[in-house]
């Protein structure tokens, strides 16, 4: 253990002298500045509405129109469609009145699914009925958690940053370390030393972990100050980072050139990133996405940042990844010891 510590301290000193350390620091500072200066606390996601009133007389008195006060008025159906073609995020509404018969035509873009169309149709019908005389609300809402809290849009970016920067980037960096040292024959030197290859790999993983913990603490503190349990955050970063590095070592062990390994890692990361779609679209949650490692990582970080988040869920995932990461690490270092070539 003492020897491992010595190797680790040596590696840490080397990396502080190298460019890697400074790049990490600059990146973290840039991210903090961008988050605090350029990213607003809440995002504007308002959608534009275009309205065309196709009426017999120009007396707009129906209560329905009150709902469309924000809409931009157009003068013909053609103009309405033209506007929708210019702005693919917009929605149009045409209201036709013929001898007291009112027709409401919701003009969508065309990519909306049938279930979404049914949903919109039913929602409008429902809101009209809810406004009508003698309506009794017979639906109760039961909340399972008393005071739900949520992150601001800005804070909501943090789990993504933590997952990509801390957990996944370890994959790349560890591969780069290994190929560098392979060139210089260091890996073979370790193999014949009493320390063994595993301590070499572990020391590298610890250096990356140290950088990960320091940068994530600084970044989270600048944005959320004292609202976070930093001990738990450190533990989460530790577990996910160990998993990331172990996976990086395992993938690297299958390749003999750095570029090829990078390619494989790049592909792995891109596939895993698909798991983050669910983070932004919570209604999309097929099982295959929930088993991608990114999914539990993102949500664990989110739960940790929430004031009353589900800490148990985060801890449970952290431990699973730590155990999984350890097994992968043991298997990968066995592969290295056997082949001696990286």
């Amino acid at each position, binding site marked *: 253990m003492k020897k491992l510590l010595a190797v680790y301290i040596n590696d840490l000193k080397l*990396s502080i002298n*190298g*460019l890697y350390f400074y*790049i*990490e620091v600059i*990146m973290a500072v840039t991210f903090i500045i961008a988050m605090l200066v*350029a990213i*607003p606390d809440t995002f504007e996601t308002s959608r534009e509405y275009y309205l065309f009133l196709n009426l017999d007389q120009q007396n707009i008195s129906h209560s*329905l129109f009150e709902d469309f006060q924000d809409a931009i008025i157009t003068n013909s159906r053609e103009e309405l469609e033209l506007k929708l*073609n210019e702005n*693919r*995020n917009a929605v*149009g509404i045409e209201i036709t009145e013929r001898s007291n*018969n*009112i*027709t*409401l*035509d919701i*003009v*969508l*873009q*065309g*990519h*909306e699914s049938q279930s*979404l169309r*049914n*949903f919109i*149709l039913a929602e*409008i019908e*429902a809101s*009209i*009925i809810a406004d009508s005389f003698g309506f009794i609300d017979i*639906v109760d*809402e*039961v*909340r*399972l*958690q008393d*005071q739900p*809290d*949520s992150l601001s849009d800005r804070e909501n*970016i943090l789990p993504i940053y933590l997952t990509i*920067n801390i957990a996944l980037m370890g994959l*790349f960096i560890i591969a780069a370390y290994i190929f*560098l040292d392979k060139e210089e024959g260091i890996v073979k030197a370790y193999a014949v030393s009493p320390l063994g290859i595993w301590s070499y790999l572990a020391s590298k993983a610890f250096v990356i972990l140290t950088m990960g913990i320091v940068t994530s603490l600084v970044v989270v503190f600048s944005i959320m100050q004292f609202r976070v349990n930093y001990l738990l955050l450190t533990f989460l970063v530790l577990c996910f980072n160990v998993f990331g590095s172990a996976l990086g070592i395992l993938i690297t062990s299958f390749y003999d050139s750095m*570029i*090829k390994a990078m*390619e494989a890692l790049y*592909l792995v990361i*891109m*596939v895993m990133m698909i798991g983050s*779609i669910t983070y932004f*679209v*919570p*209604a*999309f*949650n097929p099982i295959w996405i*929930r088993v991608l490692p990114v999914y539990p990582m993102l949500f664990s970080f989110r*739960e940790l940042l929430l004031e009353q988040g589900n800490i148990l*869920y985060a801890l449970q995932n952290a431990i699973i990844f730590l155990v999984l990461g350890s097994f992968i690490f043991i298997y990968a270092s066995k592969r290295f010891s056997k082949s001696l070539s990286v």
Partner: protein
Amino acid sequence: MRKIIAVLYRDILNGLRDWLILYLAIAPLLIALIFRLVVPGVSDTNLNLVMKHGEDQQLVSYLDDFAKIEYVDSLEDIEERVLRMDDVFGVMTVDEKVEVITQGNERREMIDALKLLINRHCHSDVEVPINIMISDVGWGESPLKIEGANILILFTSVFGGMLILLNMVDEKMSNTLSSINVSTISRFEFVVGKSILGFILPIVGSIGALLILEFETINIAHLVITLLSIGLTSVVIGFAIGVYNDEPIAAIASMKGVFIPLILSVAGAIYLSDQLQVLLFWSPFYWAYQNINAILLNESSTYLIFRNSFNIFIISLAVFAILRKRIIRGFD
């Protein structure tokens, strides 16, 4: 010219020997394929519900029109499902009323809409006083697919620069740069020869990916102009980092330095209000994003493409001017 081709030929040969080029060309296609499978699922889902087996059949078939429903056996199972990380609402009939079970952190509009919808069902005897219909203007591309394709193209183009970066680090590590310095090939020829692959692969990859994603009517010329200009940025960064580093760690860490402005530019372009977009004008990725967006929407005009590409070009030149000394020193 012959020397440039010789450098290119050597890189291709190297790349083919370890399958690298094939791999690089296939990676964006593979991701496009996966993405294509994912998109319909994402745009099809709006509302997820969990209900008990044997719930009121009329209510179930009404909700089935616009929601994805899971069935469980007991109230405890409903609560357990609702409390999980994703957004799923429980619906249960209790006597004459209906309960909507929420965790509490879901989007408010979604909960209100669901309550309205169930009320609508329970008041199905009430007649709606107006006719409601839904039509569209025939635009079939979902916004998610467009954003996804855009990000994929940006990453693919940056990866062209990364290829150069890794190639250069490789040369540095095996000390072949010094051999190049004493050979008859000029530095300019060497740089051009090395860069060509970094331009060609992203173009091939992007067009292939767009075909897989069924963007068949886009303006290819506009896309190529955009890719060439953003490729220039990636190549400048690739050389600047690659030529200076004989250790891959810093090179790979610098790669993050390219990814983060890319992600910030895209996120900013999507979420920032029009007045705040100014904050992103320094980023070549922002202009590239705008170009690709216009191309995918079939709205690109030659003026727009050239104006934005010119911006990218100027920014790349500025980056080069700043890093010029570094790059030259790196060669020596």
